[in-house]
Structures are given as C-alpha cells and as structure tokens.
C-alpha cells in the first residue's frame, strides 16, 4: 500500500500546489518523454534531480520519500531483470561489464523518474483541481467525474483493505505462510470482500447521484475557473525549453556514458 501513499493528496498549500494542474501535468509529461528518450545514465541522473526542488518547495518530502521507498521493490525487480536478460543476451559467458551495470542502473533510474514525477503531480494536485482541469480541457463531464471519483476512493479502498486484512487475520489467516503460489492464494479472502464492497459502493453512489438529479443540466458551469498565472506561464515555457533542448541533445550530440568518461 505504501506506493499509493505517495499518490494521496493532502490539503496544504504552496506555490507548487497553486500551479495550474494542466501546466503541471504538461511538465510531468515532458519529464516522462525525456526519461523515455534517454538510455544513458548521466541524463537520467540529471532528470532525477530536476523535480527535487519542486518536492522541497511543496513541502511534501515525507510522503514523497514514502512513495519512493514503496517503488523500491519494483525498482529492484527492474534492475535485476535488465541485468540478467542483458547479460545472457549480449555478454554470456563473459564477466558482466561496467556498461551492463550502468545500463541496468539507467533503466531502474528511468522507472524512478517516472514514479517520482507522477507522484509529485498527485501529491500537489487536489482531486477537485484535477477534475476542473479535465473539464476545462473539454473532456466530457462523465469521464471527468468517473476519474475524480476513482482518485478520491483510492484512500478509502486502502483503508478498507486494511480492515479486511485484520478481519481475516482474526480468523487465523496467515498471509506470509507457504510458497509463492500459496501466498498469492492467501489474498483471495481479502480481494473478494474488497471487490464486492467496491461494486456495491459504486452502485450506491450511482443511486445517490441519480436521486440528486445527476446529469439534469446539459451545460454545466463551474464556481471556480482555472486561470493561467505568471508562474504557470514560466513553468510551461521552461518545460518547452527543456523538451527542445533534450530533443536537440538526442538528435545531434552523442551522450557519453559514465563508463566512457571514467576510462578517458
């Protein structure tokens, strides 16, 4: 559950929280694209550090570190699988080289950059803002509503999963018992009540909404309207510059690998 912790919004305010969610999302997407563009370790290290000032300014270090820690397990899997498969693909039966190690690290770091940037986005954007941004990007209201509701119910679901786990443990269920397959099966008593509960809740929600005349008016207006401010423009501008620079580097410069630099 700790990965989700990093995506749970807390109602605080900072410069970052007040940014226009559309611009913030654009910024995150630019980071995403850049992370996918480079295979080399050096630019990925740089990319990893770019969002850090945002974390500090927004004051969400604790939650951010928690989500990073949650992603660590997946990161290790990514590192190992890259390392092992690359090894058998390119270098078997030689000793693994530095460049292989570097490549695997780069792939892991790429994953971390992706998690990092999206976790910043969700940590500093309230679900309301997010819905507003979607709506004002002309996404049909049904989809906006479904999306914001989904986001809003993640913490509720996480809490419910915890209660269910407690209830089943109290009936002698041991989640950590047995081999891998057995362990997966151990989660059935938790998943079924969780899913049934979620379906039941969604039906109830639908009824409650219909009884409050959901969808009665075709054209909805909003109390709050998102407006771009100077900080938003500068972030958007910065993101575009970053993207152009990254494309330029990718196309016309060769990015040195760390191993090469160390050998020279």
């Amino acid at each position, binding site marked *: 559950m700790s990965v989700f912790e990093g995506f749970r919004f807390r109602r605080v305010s900072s410069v970052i929280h007040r940014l226009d969610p559309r611009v913030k999302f654009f910024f995150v997407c630019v980071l995403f694209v850049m992370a996918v563009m480079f295979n080399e370790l050096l630019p990925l290290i740089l990319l990893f550090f770019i969002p850090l000032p945002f974390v500090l300014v927004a004051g969400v270090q604790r939650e951010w570190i928690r989500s990073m820690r949650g992603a660590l397990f997946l990161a290790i899997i990514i590192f190992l699988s890259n390392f092992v498969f690359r090894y058998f693909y390119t270098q078997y039966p030689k000793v693994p080289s530095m460049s292989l190690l570097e490549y695997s690290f780069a792939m892991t770091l790429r994953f971390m950059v992706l998690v990092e940037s999206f976790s910043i986005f969700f940590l500093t954007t309230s679900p309301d803002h997010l819905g507003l941004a979607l709506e004002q990007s002309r996404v049909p209201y049904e989809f906006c509503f479904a999306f914001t509701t989904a986001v809003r119910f993640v913490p509720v679901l996480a809490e419910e999963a915890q209660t*269910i786990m407690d209830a089943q443990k109290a009936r*002698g269920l041991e989640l950590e018992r047995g081999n891998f397959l057995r362990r997966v099966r151990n989660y059935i008593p938790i998943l079924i009540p969780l899913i049934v509960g979620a379906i039941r809740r969604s039906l109830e929600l639908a009824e409650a909404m219909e009884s409050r005349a959901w969808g009665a008016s075709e054209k909805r207006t909003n109390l709050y309207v998102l407006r771009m401010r100077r900080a938003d423009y500068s972030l958007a501008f910065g993101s575009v510059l970053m993207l152009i620079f990254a494309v330029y580097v990718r196309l016309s410069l060769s990015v040195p690998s760390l191993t090469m630099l160390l050998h020279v």
Partner: protein
Amino acid sequence: MIEVKDVYFTYPNGVEALKGVSLTIDDGEFMAIMGQNGAGKTTLVKHLNGLLKPTKGDVMVDGVSTRDVSVAKLARTVGFVFQNPDHQLFCETVEDEVAFALRNFGFEESAIKKRVTWALNLLDVTKYRQTSPFMLSGGERKRVALASVLAWDPKVVILDEPTIGQDYQQKEKLRQFIVQLNAQKKTVIVVTHDVEFVAECNPRVVLMAEGKIVAEGGAEEILTNQKLVAQASIVPPQIAQIFLGLADLGLPTNVIDVHEARKVLLDLLEATS
C-alpha cells in the same frame, strides 16, 4: 486472563489513539467497552488479539505478551467478530465460510464438519448452509460472521458493535445469546454505543474518552452517573433517565433494569396507597 498494562498506541499517520490504558479482564467476565466515536474502543480491542501491537506498554493474554505470538495463534484463544460482516465474508457457501477459520487452525475434516453444524445451529442459520453468504440479509450475514468465529470455540469472544443494524428482536436474541455464552464461562467483551443494550445486559462497563479509560465499574453505577456519561458523550438509558427525574420522590437513582424499575415503582405505589 487478559492484562493491558499502561498501553500507548500511535497509528502510522500520527494519531495517538491510546494514551496509557490499563485494564484487567478476568476469565469468564462480561465486559462492555463504551465511549464516543474516536475514543479508542476499537483500537483497544484490536490489541487484545494482537492485530495491533502497543507502541508502549504490554498486552498479556494468559501470561504471554502479544508481541511474542502471531495473530493467528492468539486468535485461537481470542475470537474477534468485526463490526461489518461484509469485511470478512468471501466464500461460496455459508458452510465454507464457517469452516474457513477451522481449516486455518488445522482442524481435522471430520471435526470441522461437526463444528460447522454446531455453530450454524447455535446461530439459527442451518437452513442457509449451502447458500451464498452474499444472498443473505444484513442481520443474517452478521450471524454467519458470528458463527464463523464461534465455530472454533474461542475462550474469549470480542464483539465490535454487535447491535448495529439489528432490529429489536434480533438484539434481544443476541442478548440472550451473549448471556448464554457468558454462562458457559466464556469471556465476552462487547464494544458498543448502544446504552439500552448494555443496560439490559448489565455487564461490567469500561468507559473510554480520548484514548483513556475514564471510568470502570458495574453498568448500574456507571450509566447512572450523569457526570461520567456526559464526559463520554453518551445518553443514560431511558430507565435511568426516569429514575434520575424521580429522584425527589426518594427513589434510588441507580436503576437501569426494566424489571427492577417495575418492582421499585410498584412498591412505591403500594406504600402510598
């Protein structure tokens, strides 16, 4: 015997739910833990079967600290029925549901069959043996959940809000059932808001507020103490309210039982006529 020794508990999100709770629950005792929402009632009982481990202090079940044994092992002695049956029902049939815990505890198949039959009978749900628990009504689901815990015959039974969503008749059945369990020398711990229910059962009452135990004693004593009751944000039972209002007639103020109330009032009427 369960001993709670100066227990503090803080949730991972920083909420301090228990602030120095000490409590001894003897074998065969019938206890109600009361208090308003967020007083720490559920947090406290989750310590009794090791679901939560104290941040500071100790919980001893029959002389063993809950830190040293797994929940599965403790659950064998301390059965816990959760508030919402939907949080635990998942099997295809009621029979499997009741057998689930027994299989976890490693009972023999023949013993499981016997115990399931016994538990289903006990809670009057035998006719649903092959039905899916999801098809049952709320009250029936609650009874199946109860049966699934009682099936392994734990020494201590904890019931979290057993009366919620039950009609009066079901409540009365539940009350008789609890009294019966207690008569079989089981320790019964009930977490509840329901003052009327507690008044009718007349257990030992532990009153909690803001993570602390504010009072402990017989139901008659605690539920008729207006100051304590106000502190824990509960309303005295109706009978107690009548007798508190009639205090100027020289009547006792510590009456919560309907039958006792009737007797006192009849005596008064006879004396005056």
